């Protein structure tokens, strides 16, 4: 009797979305919260975000663990914290929230990063649920569960989830992109309350935009392509709220760019020239002349400021006066437009790194595990390893992939335009939105920092590629690609 009740309830509540969410939850708990704990080693970026949020490196041998080992415990400042926020990021909200929970349940002196991972995981599981629900709602159960299985394969991959046990902004980027996409698709499918979904959509986009400096264009892209949302309902109230939200997003995008701290601008600006513009130039001296820079700076061609020893300090007044002041985002963009051969080479280089989810430089295990320095986990990493090994790593492939995906979704979009059904137009809008977000990541990385640290800078591209491909595959399985969108936006 009892078994029958349980199985009946399981069948009743065990929708593909629930199964996918539970699958991701269990696998991620096994990865992040059961020894050996999986996380990400510090590449030197942590101090900027954690010191301003009241944490410090407490491990005595922390310096020896850079890049090699994941560190899970940090100290909480017990006195006045003189470190002002050197980094403007929505990530701080989550860190502070995690510190509060940590202090509540664990310790006032020590911070265990797994409290942060737990918060991220809850959000993540919710986002996975919403996305799979959007793709499997009203779908035959068999197809639905195939999609759910694929979702577990993709979303529980430790290439993505290991970021939760780190202070990298990628966790926020990944979760918020997922939420933006899921809430957008739910709006398309007219599932749940539109106002609630709109709120999730806008808040996630806001957090996403302000999570990393390079995401400043995301706010602009979502604001522009999100205009379709205004027309999905006829009520003035809805339209007013949507307009206000989109304008705010636009403003936040601009604001994020303006608030980028100078130190970042300098390192990235340095690489934008030495690892970008000059890298494939056949005559770096002439290229520099084109920017009004002394040709002697050609000796910096190809140099990376992350190397231990360099000729010049990236923040020196000399570079400030005679190098950085001579170029900016606009002039570099113009250079690439007028030198398409160099642009193509840079894009191909980006594509070579654009399919790597887990940056090769950082290890995943704690030092106490006795693993090798910088060793990566293979636990539930099938998707990331497969993608890294199989994806054709040229920009041509990216272009073809975009053309194919847009081609697949175009017929229903044209249909929707003819029928003047704004809601039905949303799907292609969302696909384009994600593609542009990914592309903006590539362009901002190349123009803003050349090829330096591309594997990490291109995380957003790889994330959006996965989400769009997942949508395409799910729609193919669900036969929803060209067919009747009936329930989608009736």
């Amino acid at each position, binding site marked *: 009797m009892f078994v029958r009740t349980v199985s009946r309830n399981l069948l009743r509540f065990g929708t593909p979305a629930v199964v996918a969410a539970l699958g991701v939850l269990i696998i991620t708990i096994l990865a992040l919260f059961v020894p050996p704990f999986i996380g990400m080693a510090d590449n030197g970026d942590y101090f900027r975000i954690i010191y301003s949020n009241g944490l410090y490196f407490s491990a005595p041998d922390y310096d020896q663990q*850079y890049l090699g080992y994941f560190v899970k415990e940090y100290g909480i400042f017990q006195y006045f914290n003189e470190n002002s926020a050197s980094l403007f990021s929505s990530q701080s909200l989550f860190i502070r929230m995690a510190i509060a929970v940590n202090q509540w349940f664990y310790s006032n002196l020590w911070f265990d990063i797994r409290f942060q991972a737990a918060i991220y995981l809850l959000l993540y599981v919710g986002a996975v649920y919403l996305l799979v629900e959007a793709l499997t709602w009203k779908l035959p159960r068999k197809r639905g569960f195939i999609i759910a299985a694929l979702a577990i394969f993709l979303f529980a991959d430790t290439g993505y989830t290991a970021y939760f046990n780190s202070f990298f902004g990628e966790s926020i980027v990944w979760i918020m992109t997922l939420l933006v996409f899921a809430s957008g698709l739910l709006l398309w499918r007219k599932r749940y309350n539109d106002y609630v979904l709109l709120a999730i959509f806008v808040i996630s986009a806001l957090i996403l935009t302000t999570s990393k400096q390079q995401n400043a264009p995301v706010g602009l892209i979502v604001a522009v392509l999100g205009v379709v949302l205004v027309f999905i309902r006829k009520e003035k109230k809805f339209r007013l709220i949507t307009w206000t939200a989109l304008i705010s997003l636009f403003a936040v995008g601009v604001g994020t760019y303006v608030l980028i701290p100078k130190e970042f601008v300098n390192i990235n600006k340095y690489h934008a020239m030495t690892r970008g513009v000059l890298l494939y130039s*056949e005559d770096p001296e002439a290229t520099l002349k084109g920017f009004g820079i002394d040709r002697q*700076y050609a*000796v910096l061609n190809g140099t990376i400021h992350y*190397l*231990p020893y*360099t000729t*010049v300090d990236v923040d020196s007044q*000399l570079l400030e006066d005679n190098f950085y002041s001579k170029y900016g985002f606009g002039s570099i963009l113009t250079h690439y437009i007028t030198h398409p051969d160099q642009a193509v080479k840079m894009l191909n280089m980006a594509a070579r790194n654009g399919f790597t989810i887990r940056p090769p430089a950082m290890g995943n295990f704690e030092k106490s595990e006795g693993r090798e320095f910088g060793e990566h986990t293979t636990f539930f990493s099938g998707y990331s390893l497969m993608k890294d090994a199989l994806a054709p790593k040229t920009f041509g492939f990216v272009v073809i992939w975009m053309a194919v995906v847009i081609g697949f979704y175009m017929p229903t979009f044209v249909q929707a335009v003819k029928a003047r059904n704004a809601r039905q137009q949303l799907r292609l809008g969302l696909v384009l939105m994600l593609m542009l977000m990914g592309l903006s990541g590539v362009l901002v990385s190349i123009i803003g920092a050349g090829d330096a640290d591309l594997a990490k800078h291109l995380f957003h591209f790889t994330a959006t590629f996965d989400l769009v491909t997942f949508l395409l595959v799910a729609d193919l399985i669900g036969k929803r690609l060209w067919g009747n969108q009936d329930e989608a936006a009736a």
Partner: protein
Amino acid sequence: MNRRHRLRELTIPFAQPDWRSSISVRLMMLLIGLMLAVPGVAAAASDEKQTSQVLLVYDSLALGSGKEGNIEALKRMAAAFGASVTVQSFDQYVSGSISSYDYVIGVRNREDLMTDGGSFLQDLSHYEGAYLHIGANLPGPMRAELRLLEEKRTQETISLSIGQLAESSIKVSGGRFITSYNGESYGTIAMDGRQDTYPYGVRNGSTAYIPYYEKGNLSELALGYLLKDWLKFEKETQLYVLFTEIYPFSDLQALVRMADSLYDAGIPFIVSVRPVFSNTDYPAMKRYLEALKHVQSRNGSVVVQAPNVSATISQDMTTLDLQMAEFINVLADYGVAPLGVGAEMYWVYDQHYITKGMGAFDSSVLFPNGEVKHMAKVDTTKAFASSLYTVEMSQIEQLQRKELYLEPLPMDTALVLDFPSDEEKLEATIDRLVEEWTSFGDYKNTGHEVKTEKYEIASQGGILYLNGQAVTLNAADRLISSDYEYISKGEKSFETLFTMQNKILIVLILLSLFIFGCFLIIGYRMYKRKYEIRRRL
């Protein structure tokens, strides 16, 4: 020629253009060069005197107070006297270790710090070597030996003079002033509005005491006068002019012009040049080398500035020695002989930097610390055969002098100037030096050695040597061509085959287009004909 130039003519004959051009002088230089057994000259000189082992123990770094930085300044100064210094706080001091040092310096920066000095003071009471005390709480036995009486004042504005230098309006809080002592005194302190004067420091044999010592005013340099006698340092010292901030992308023409102007004025100088670790075959690098070669020919000595430490987290930190050796080799290949290494103070207290970064050099120029980025911090510094103390030129200029010219300070000192960043500043700097009455030393007159696997670079008596061969100083500049293949075109295989294949494909495509065009025209005509037939019907 004015009087000052005439004076220089007498003191630095080789630096004068008239003299230098004479054949006899050149022959003389060549002969000296051949006669001197070059390798090992500096090493032999350094072996003559055993390195002084100094223990520096302090109570506090006095961060945030006026005394902040005095420990670092003291470390730099002791290094300039060729001492190997071990620095420890009272807490770090290991009981019994005092006996392995010839000299001990105790610094008490904080009078209010409740520390009894622990085992250090206990060991000190039995110590028989030389002891210098700086600051508060002079231990009883030393006080007795110096027969010291002093008075304490909460706030005073003092004037300090020592040697030919003086500085007034120095604010001292909680200062102690020596009223009675036994031994030799150093410097004079006078208080504003009072007749009485007090010694800056006193020494009786191997026991010495300085009540007040801060970084950034004359008390920093004044310590050198006492330290020289206390450490029994007997070498003659020199004042040098040193330019920093010289990069491959500095204004090289300005550098050449400055070198010419200083040469014409008979002023030898040192340039501390930034190393380049990549693209050393680029024309831009060649221009840099050409400029340095010109500088060298104009009585400019070259020292290699330590590279900028941009990241200490990289695990691949082991290549520094190879990179430095490579840069030295690049310089030497071009006929430029670097004679030493310039680095911030903390480099000599770091095992990694000492062995990997400075290992090739026996001479150093130590600058105050900027941003400290340690890799493997150690307590004890390596002693260099020659180590220059550095003072900003502007700091010296703020001091009052008794004479127009400046005599050498007790330690070899480089007066530091940043290489001017624009034309106006360049002219001002040249004028400033040309109008200076001081006689500056030529760095290559003393022995220096730099060793890599490929080169043994040395200097002695004003002559530079590369692998034992005297370097010919040639000021004739070579024009560097900008032509360079930056991107290697890679090896091409089956080039003819692919060219042929391309041509065949082009022909095929054109043929297809032509046939397609024909079909299009034929089809159109057929369609038109069918339409016309229908219309007719």
